[in-house]
Structure formats: structure tokens, C-alpha cells
């Protein structure tokens, strides 16, 4: 199963830091996400687009996981030579992760 089957995701960007918000379609699936979608797995999956560390925050009241990714490849929105200078497409890359 792909994360795409279970959850939706939004990317935000702050310079070379990207945030990825993962929310399950079904609130009952949140514990499964907490178990399966570790920071280490996300970091490995997003390599090499994310070169720095990935920190995970759990927000159980809203059934959301927040991943804060540092050193997003390309140098941030303003000076990057990447096609997606913001890193906005990282959200869809993350949804391709196999659970």
C-alpha cells in the first residue's frame, strides 16, 4: 500500500526548510501512520531531495504528522536551479512511500 492510499499531504517552504503535513483520510488510521511513517523512513525516501535531517512532530488532536526537513536540495526558493524552486512537489514524492 502506498501512503497515497491512506493520507493526503501538503508541503510548505521556509527557505531551505520544507514542512510536510501528513493527514490520514480516516482518523482511525492515525496510529498506523505514527507507527509506520517514522522520520527515518521519510528521510530515506526523500533522499536526495532532502539532504539534512528530518524531524517529526505528532499532533494527535488533529490526527496529523508534521515533518520538518532541513537542507532541501537546491538552496531554497530564491537561488535554486531546480525546476520546482520551492520544493512544493515534495508532498507528492512523500505520498509515493510504500507502507
Amino acid at each position, binding site marked *: 500500500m502506498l501512503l497515497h*492510499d491512506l493520507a493526503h499531504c501538503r508541503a510548505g517552504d521556509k527557505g531551505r526548510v520544507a514542512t510536510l*503535513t501528513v493527514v490520514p483520510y480516516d482518523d482511525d488510521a492515525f496510529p498506523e501512520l505514527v507507527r509506520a511513517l517514522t522520520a527515518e523512513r521519510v528521510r530515506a525516501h526523500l533522499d536526495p531531495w532532502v539532504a539534512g535531517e528530518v524531524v517529526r512532530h505528532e499532533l494527535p488532536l488533529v490526527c496529523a504528522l*508534521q515533518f520538518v526537513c532541513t537542507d532541501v536540495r537546491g538552496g531554497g526558493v530564491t537561488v535554486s536551479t531546480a525546476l520546482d524552486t520551492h520544493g512544493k512537489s515534495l508532498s507528492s514524492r512523500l505520498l509515493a512511500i510504500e507502507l
Partner: protein
Amino acid sequence: MADPVARTTVRIGAGAGFAGDRVDPAVDLAAHGALDDLVLECLAERTIALGQQRRLADPDAGHDPRLHARLAPLLPVALERGTRVLTNMGAANPVAAGRAVRALLDDLGARASVGVVTGDDVLDVLDLDAPALEDGRPLREHGEIVSANAYLGADAITPALEAGAQVVVTGRVADPSLFLAPLAQRLGWAPDDVDATAAGTLVGHLLECAGQLTGGYAADPGRFDVPDLARLGFPFADVAADGSAVYGKLDGTGGRLDRHTVREQLLYEVTDPAGYVTPDVLLDLRGVRVEDAGADRVRVHGARGRPRPDRLKVTVGHRAGTRVEAEISYVGPGAEARGRLAADVVATRLAGLPLAPRIEVRGGPEDARLRVAARGEDPTVLDAVGHEVEALYTNGPAGGGGVRVHRTPVLGVVSTLVPRSAVHPRTTILEAVGAAA
């Protein structure tokens, strides 16, 4: 005029979530939303540096170039209904923006007064030896500095509201502060009430990207379906004096507003859910609850706050050369292999030049597009990137087509912190011609 008696609820709407946003949903919301306040957030991090460059060329420029196109259809509708309008479209030149709004209102015969908030521009007083937050290197080592703007807070906007301004134009202020200021003024929240300030900041955080709360940026056919996306409605919030809020959008508009769209936006660009920093407060989102409250209605409550930071964040814009991007396509059998061969040819041809080009073959096996991108200072070197991709027409693999070459001046952005004492917000009220001062 400040409300003589504090209100019990305020309805505040989002009329733009970025500089390129649509105009018609804002006009629709102003016409039919029964709003007290409408906020148009149009100023991204880098936008002000671009504006500063235009201002250097023309002292009357530097504000949002779409200011007139956005406000001309909106202001008559909003003002007729008694809705105040707040926007950061002043960008690098709030004074010129205020004059442009004044002229627009005079043309309409509108007597409404315009409040202009300045003082965010700290370029003249910035210590260029201070370290950038991003890399610790002194600011001056990041290329020629062209702009430096402090994020002002709600306290910079309040005087214009207290003076009765019905349109408020700012430069750099924190996005949520544009919402917090009118909420606090109408609901009678004191600046040191950290939980109320946090609640108002959360309203601003959720509304500031406009359509991103109502299903924009979320649609994923078959998974996350959003009805009538082409007519996405912008959101509003009914905010109670206790800081809780019910979010909605106009009946008959496209989009979708439910706990899913709100949860995504709740954490958008939040790097620390325990302490989202604004000039007004440290917003703690950990206790926030998001509850479906009917069709396209969501109730949000539970924000907590801690006292505002002692220092203000400053965004510093610097020149960072020029970016060149050149592309060519290959289709049909073997397209990907021809794309990779083209990439090898370009890499060989550009080797030895002082640049670090990004060379990538995008697309699939039968429709591949070579993209070569580089950033640098030397125009001759940058020209070589476009020339080498274009030369693939007659010198490269079979069937290459669709060459496009783009050059864009690049402005970089870094940040630093300054003490509040270094920043002096000011308010100017522009009355209608012939009005008593």
C-alpha cells in the same frame, strides 16, 4: 472609528493569498459575505526585494504592480458594505501604494480614509556584519544587499484602525498580524492577552493563503476530490470574543472546507508546532482542535500563546546573479536515451566554464525533456548554456525539438534578527480631498 463597544463576533475574510491570486473570489466574498474586514495578503519573502529594485528605477513604483487591478473592482463593493480592507500590497513602497489607493478612491468619489503603515524598511540602519540566520555568515557576504524589511506586528497596524482608516496599506508585516489587528481592535483584546492574541494569530494563519483553506492546493482526483475547483471560493471566519472561530465559504462557490483542508493548512510552513513565532506572540498549536461543523463549516479552537519575542525578524534581499534555464524535447522510441545523450553532449561542451549547471532529463521513456539550468554572474558564461542547448538542433541527437531558453535575474533572501528598539512603525492617514483633517 473604533467600535465604541467591543463586539461579540467578527467576520473576517481572505481576499488574496499571494500576489498572483484571483480577483473575482475576493469581489464575490466582499459582495455577499457580510464581512467586517477583508484581508489581502500579497507579499512573499522575495517580492519586496523585487519591488525595491523597481523603486530604485522609479520612486513611485515598488508596490504591488497589480494593486490597481485588484482593488479597482473590489473597493467600491467592500466600502459600500462597510467592510474594511487591509493589505500588504504596499510592498517596498507603501507610501506610493497609499497614494494610488487614495487616487482610486477619489476617482470613485469615495470619502473613506486610507491608512499607510511604514517603518518596516530598515535597510539604512541594518548592521551588515550581523550573521544571517540561515548560515551564520555576515549579511554583507551574501552579495549586494538591495532590501531589508522587518516583520512588523499587529501593534503597527492598530493606530491606523484606531484613526478610522477603512483601507489599510502596509509593507512587510507578518501575515497573521494583518488579521489579528482588526480582530483585536473590534473584539477588545489586549496585546498582553497571550491566548487571545494566539487565537487571532491562528485565524490569520489559517486564512492568509485564502483558497488553500477551501480546497485549493489539495485536489487529487480519485483521492481528494474537490467540487467545482474552477470556481474555488475564498474563506471567511466568524471569530468569537473567546478566540474560537467557525470557518466558512459562500454557498454556491466551488471548493471544499472540512477538517481535512483545515488540518493541512493548520500546519502549513510551521516548523515548530509548539511555538510558531510571529511579532505578536508565540503560537502553540498542540492543543488546537479542528471539528466539522456542518456543510463547508469548520470550528477551530484551543490555541495557546506565550509572550512575543524580544527581537523582530528581518528579511534581507540580495542580488544573486542570473538564472538561465534551457530545455529541449525528444519523443518516440528511444526518447529517454537520446535525452541522456543530449545531456552528455551539453555537459561536455560546458565543462571548463566557471559554472555548476544542473543537467537533468525529465519525463518518461517516450517523451523526455532535457533541462539545463545554471546560476551565475558572467553574462557570457550564462549565454553558453542557452547556446549549447539550442545548438543541439543540428549537432545533437535525432529529433530534438521545442527549445526554450529563459533568463531570470535572481534575488536571494536571508534573514536576521533586530531589537524592537531599532524598528519604528509609523502611520499616515490619507483623507479624501477636501475632507477635514
